[in-house]
């Protein structure tokens, strides 16, 4: 600790270089955090998928409906605990770029299926009573500056006409990876207004008693409806989401490869800066050694300086990244999940620490083994 003033003096000796080195680390780690955020948002909450939930969709594709009568038949299957369903509405609020997902939900069963979404009891009750009511996720509510009690017009695209909904409540999520951009309304309202496709739903969500039984139940459901006019494909929620992620295809891979390569280049540049700055100080180090500083002291001092730059820069970069993500999704609703998770932060700090250590190690080793007489002669 008593060497702290010396350390600080060293860091402050060439202010511009210090700023640039710390800045480079900060940029690299900002980028690292950003890539983590992008990766996370492309994964669409894969990590928060419920292990005991299955998604049942029409075998042909998700856009094809399933009959509402399947609800009863699904709940009779062994090991099935709860069944709920929903339909995609795909409406537009004011203009198409204001995208957010709207689901027509089964009011009786939907909430119990998704306990991760929290809604105050009185708001939920108000929603149940109001046939044109809706529940909006916190992010979407804030994005458009809506309040509870507002009446929201949504232009239907798949269905017809302008639909109006009363905001009865807002749902929040405990985990950051949960999507709070959705908009839920009564399935019955949709069903009544669309007589030409009455009693069809988009997909079912099924909860099994025991996650270990999931594979078995999946098979039973698909066999039960095989050779009917509405065959099904059942998957765990995680597999269902992974299917979407895979469809994004190589775009995600390309962003990640490119970004990672560049981040490491940036880190290498900062590393070479560090060794340059220490090599310039050969004379000083020789003097320190002549005054009686031991090799371990020298090693520790230089490593501490190098790691200091790295960690300060890294911390700065990740903080800026965190602030940036708090500002919300920059693509206007296309990435519902957009946040910096703790795993990325810890990994990032770990990486900077390692780069600081490695880039300081060789110069520190050279300094440690420095021949005093030869170094002093060159002054």
């Amino acid at each position, binding site marked *: 600790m008593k060497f702290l003033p010396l350390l600080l003096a060293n860091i402050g000796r060439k202010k511009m270089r210090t700023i640039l080195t710390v800045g480079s680390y900060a940029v690299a780690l900002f980028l690292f955090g950003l890539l983590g955020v992008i990766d996370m948002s492309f994964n669409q909450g894969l990590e928060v998928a419920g292990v005991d939930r299955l998604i049942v969709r029409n075998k042909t594709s998700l856009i094809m409906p399933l009959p509402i009568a399947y609800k009863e038949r699904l709940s009779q299957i062994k090991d099935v605990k709860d069944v709920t369903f929903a339909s995609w509405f795909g409406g537009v609020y004011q203009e198409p770029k204001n995208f957010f997902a709207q689901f027509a939900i089964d009011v009786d069963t939907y909430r119990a299926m998704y306990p991760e979404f929290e809604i105050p009891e009185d708001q939920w009750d108000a929603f149940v009573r109001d046939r044109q009511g809706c529940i909006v996720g916190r992010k979407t509510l804030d994005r458009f500056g809506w309040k509870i009690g507002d009446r929201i017009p949504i232009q239907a*695209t798949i269905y017809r006409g302008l639909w109006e909904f009363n905001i009865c409540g807002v749902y929040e999520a405990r985990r950051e990876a949960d999507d709070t951009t959705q908009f839920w309304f009564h399935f019955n309202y949709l069903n009544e207004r669309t007589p030409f496709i009455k009693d069809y739903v988009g997909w079912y969500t099924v909860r099994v008693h025991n996650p270990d039984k999931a594979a078995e139940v999946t098979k039973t459901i698909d066999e039960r409806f095989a050779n009917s006019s509405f065959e099904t494909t059942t998957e765990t929620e995680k597999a269902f989401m992974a299917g979407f992620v895979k469809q994004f*295809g190589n775009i995600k891979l390309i962003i990640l490869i490119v970004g990672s390569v560049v981040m490491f280049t940036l880190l290498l540049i900062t590393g070479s800066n560090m060794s340059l700055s220490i090599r310039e100080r050969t004379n000083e180090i020789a003097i320190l050694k002549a005054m009686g500083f031991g090799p371990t002291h020298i090693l520790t001092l230089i490593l501490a300086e190098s790691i200091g730059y790295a960690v300060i820069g890294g911390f700065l970069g990740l903080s800026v990244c965190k602030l940036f993500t708090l500002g919300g999704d920059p693509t206007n609703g296309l990435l519902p999940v957009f946040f910096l998770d703790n795993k990325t932060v810890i990994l990032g700090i770990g990486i900077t620490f390692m780069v600081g250590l490695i880039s300081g190690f060789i110069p520190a080793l050279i300094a440690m083994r420095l021949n005093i007489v030869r170094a002093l002669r060159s002054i």
Partner: protein
Amino acid sequence: MAIPLIYNVRSIQGRFSSTLVALLSIAGVIAVLVATMAMAKGFKKTLVASGSSQNAIVLRGGATSEMESSLELEQIKIIGDDPRVARDSSGRPMISAEVVVIASLPLRATGTDANVQIRGVSQNAFVIRDTVKLLKGRFFTPGLAEIVVGKYAHETYRGFDLDKTIHFGGIDWTIVGILDAGGSAFDSESWCDANVLNQAYKRPENLFQSMTARLISPESLKSLKDALNTDPRLTVTIKSEIDYYADQSVMVSTLINVLGFLVAGAMGIGAIFGALNTMYSAVSTRNREIATLRAIGFRERDVVISFLLESLLIAFLGGLLGSLIILPINGYTASTINWQTFSHMSFAFAITPDILIQGILFSLLLGFFGGLFPAIRAAHTPIAPALRGL
């Protein structure tokens, strides 16, 4: 009087290794920038190439994509009778009433399902879309469960080979041909008879989703639009095919552009730091040189310009290198899901001259900001103490 440029060229040669670090970091930034712009451009280009200026697409009023739209046969007949719609040699209107659906079929690469766009078309479809050619096999026979697949679909999905059978919508389809649509979105689709597809998907007979019509001239779109809008029997939206497909690319190309610019922007700041470092150390090691230049009569302004030029030169070389490195990516095929059509689409990266120009301009911007402050410091070098350092 300006300091000769050869002075800067020589000093870059003299400090090759530190210049190289700055040059490479700028090259990296430009490469990433060009790559992301080429990705967004390629995606958009693929969709836009699907449209022809002489074709118009008709959707239900208010629908923004074919997936959401629906049109009845009567409406299609009314529109087909309009004199602004072109006729074929036997006098029939050149229109195609189409059904667009999605089938979940496994990808060759991963075995997991992806959404293939299946387009049920009328016989005239191949005449109206004259860019769509047959690569192998033959067209489907109307009324049969036969299907032709786009060349990208053929490469992307399992079992999409000539004479093979695929199963979706409850029936078996025989693949009788492979299409080449010149790299447009149709290359990711599969085409079959609209009526057969309607039956397979248990949709009502004579209900279609969109209608594509060949017009007598691109200019007739406007008057046709006015006529349709005032016709009380119709509630439809009509658009030029090109505009329609350009709209379908908005979401994904926005996503790529925003994320791409974010990453490239952050990297750009990193590269400015790299350039600053190089230029500052260039200035500090050349103190005496600069003082000498000043002593023999060059003014402060000349020194600033000279150092800025040097920085711009490094940045320009970096930008050039970055563009060259990334050039081979042009034409590389990637694929992703298009949220607006909810289907999987392949597209090729497109590096166009304007992307390259933007890349080089951005590199010059980096060079300018990386060189400005070191150049000012160089100009303020006190002459006497620096010379005394000899």
